[in-house]
């Protein structure tokens, strides 16, 4: 029993923290996300071996994903990871097209016929060679990006460009295997880990500001209305980190726990990152509401990430279904409430 990273995992974390901090300064992030400069660091990231890090373990993947969130890296790495988990034979760069236009928030019941229709909110499709596309009946296809019509959409989170992708009878290779369940859980954990990173960074920003900023002659962090808000951020960040590492570990070592753990991690971390960013903005006061301040970039990532790969509500319903039964299939033993 040891709820701590190994020395190797800590080394990966340290390396990622340093690398990302040196490459993705806030100035550079703004240039890429807001001024449309290309992200120049993919080759270096590939050299570090990060695109294939899930081969070491989902915990290793989570550790790097957390640092990507912490750094707010405007990199297509997360989209690529998701594609690679679903399509282990993927060559080149990938992304995942999973949300149907006018579809529901349930990622498990895509309605698009193979392969004609429109997918929205496809991340980083502009730099992807291959799109992993979900279709009716829970089927998965690999489609060449050049065989689809990829149009930029207006993403709230500019650090992760989104695209609308139209398929008009596109050719696709149907993906097969028994890995999809685990892959989707690993993707949920990856997204949760990113949210943990955002929450950790923003908690630090709020605490630092609460120590510096003086009003009525005192640091605002000495007022309980502010210090207790910061304590709440810390609780949710550490809580999110705990369930996320647990879920990642379960995917590697205790597959029978992994389903529940992954749903729990994505639900809790999604909410935690959004709650932390909202609260941090309040702690910052007016300055936090300005374009010039970096906080809004984190808020937008947290909010967008909360809806990517299944939102908290959907993941909570998976937990409820496991513990209370599926309401669509009432059981004879269902106990009346009260």
């Amino acid at each position, binding site marked *: *029993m*040891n*709820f*701590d*990273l*190994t020395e190797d*995992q800590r080394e990966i974390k340290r390396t990622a923290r340093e690398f990302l901090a040196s490459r993705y300064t806030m100035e550079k992030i703004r240039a890429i996300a807001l001024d449309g400069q290309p992200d120049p660091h993919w080759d270096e990231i590939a050299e570090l071996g990060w695109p294939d890090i899930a081969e070491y373990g989902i*915990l290793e993947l989570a550790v790097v994903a957390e640092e990507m969130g912490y750094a707010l890296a405007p990199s297509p790495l997360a989209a690529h990871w998701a594609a690679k988990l679903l399509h282990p034979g993927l060559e080149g760069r990938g992304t995942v097209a999973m949300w149907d236009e006018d579809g529901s928030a349930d990622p498990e019941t895509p309605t698009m016929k193979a392969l004609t229709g429109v997918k929205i909110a496809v991340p980083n499709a502009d730099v992807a060679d291959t799109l992993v596309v979900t279709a009716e009946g829970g089927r998965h296809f690999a489609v060449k990006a050049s065989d689809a019509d990829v149009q930029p959409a207006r993403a709230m989170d500019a650090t992760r460009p989104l695209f609308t992708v139209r398929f008009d009878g596109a050719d696709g290779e149907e993906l097969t295997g028994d890995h999809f369940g685990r892959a989707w859980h690993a993707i949920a954990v990856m997204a949760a880990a990113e949210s943990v990173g955002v929450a950790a960074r923003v908690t630090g920003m709020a*605490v630092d500001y*609460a*120590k510096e900023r003086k009003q009525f002659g*005192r*640091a605002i*962090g*000495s*007022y*309980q209305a502010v*210090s*207790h808000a*910061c*304590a*709440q951020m*810390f*609780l949710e960040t*550490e*809580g*999110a980190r*705990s*369930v996320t*590492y*647990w879920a990642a*570990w*379960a995917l590697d*070592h*205790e597959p029978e726990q992994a389903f529940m*753990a992954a749903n*729990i991690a994505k*639900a*809790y971390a999604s909410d935690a990152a959004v709650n932390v960013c909202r609260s941090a903005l309040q702690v910052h006061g007016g300055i936090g509401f300005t374009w010039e301040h970096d906080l809004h970039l984190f808020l937008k990532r947290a909010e967008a990430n909360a809806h990517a790969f299944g939102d908290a*509500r959907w993941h*909570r*319903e998976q*937990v*409820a279904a496991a*513990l*209370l*039964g599926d*309401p669509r299939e*009432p*059981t004879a*033993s*269902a*106990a009346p*409430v*009260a």
Partner: protein
Amino acid sequence: MDLTLSPAEEEFRDQLRSWIGDNHPGREPDSDDESFAFRRDWQRKLNDRGWAGLTWPERYGGAGATQIEQAIFFEEIARARAPQMANVLGLTMGGPTLIAHGTDDQKERFLGPILSADEIWCQGFSEPESGSDLASLKTRAVLKGDEYIVTGQKVWTTFAHQSKWCMLLARTDQDAPKHRGLTYFLLDMEQDGVEVRPLVQITGEAEFNELFLEEARIPADNVIGGVDNGWRVAITTLMHERAGLAFALQARVQIALGELADELRGSDDPVIRQRFAQLAIEAQVLRLLAYRGLTTAMKSGEPGPEGSLGKWLWADINQDLTTLAMDARGPAAQLVDDTWTYRFLRARANSIEGGTTEILKNIVAERVLGLPRG
């Protein structure tokens, strides 16, 4: 990172599981007195097996178990929905404090009867005017010959009416700064100078008491950890309470969650389902924070801030859980239900007892985040 158990730990878990299976005393009676006797019997059974003082050293009647085995113990108790032991304050606070600060004679005299539940312990810390600001307490202890004469008033004294010994914090130096003039005593409850009055709480029960001390006597031998050193000794007690409690609390939440799931199973109300799932998720957060706390404690030798986080989160969860149970009952929630009405009301104290949520947030803000004191 490794959340699996070692072969030895698995063996301990299996032994424990089968023992609890054979010895489970059944459903706890609802009435306070019957429930106390029921828990006392349960504790004696566990103690006969050597498990009442699981982590205490073997020479004091414990099993010398590791903190992980302690965690396993609480999880198995929760899994089997088995009761708590009767002498909970003696086991989680009194004993560990004596083991850390007591003299050999004190350990010899007091530890055995804590384990056997022959002597129940209570805690006399809070006073009517000293709640969160505990160190401002006013109960005075004056040395006269070889005994202290104690006068003052304590409140929220759980189990006082069943107790033989009270862990009493009293002021021995009126002139010292407030944290420095306190001494930690063991007060014999069976004497004329001690009056216990039940304090009826919002549930209608009297689980707590007021304690009136009028020239009560304490032999000087019953000072724990040195005269005027009581604050430090009390902090040890509170740290033990929070660290040891984190697992017990999360285990109790798992039990309550299982009971609530039994009632809600098959519900198609999406709001109830969402709220239930959120509680199951937070209960898992609580459990994992406790495990992380264990790792911190094992590496650094001290409980980490997770102790404060755990108590705080537990209070939030238990209050929300019991509120959800009421909401799920619909109009019937207006009527008394022996289980959930009581629990809904009782849970209101969770964010006050054993350190208010506000104080716990202060601890996190000041000691973990380094924010300035207000």
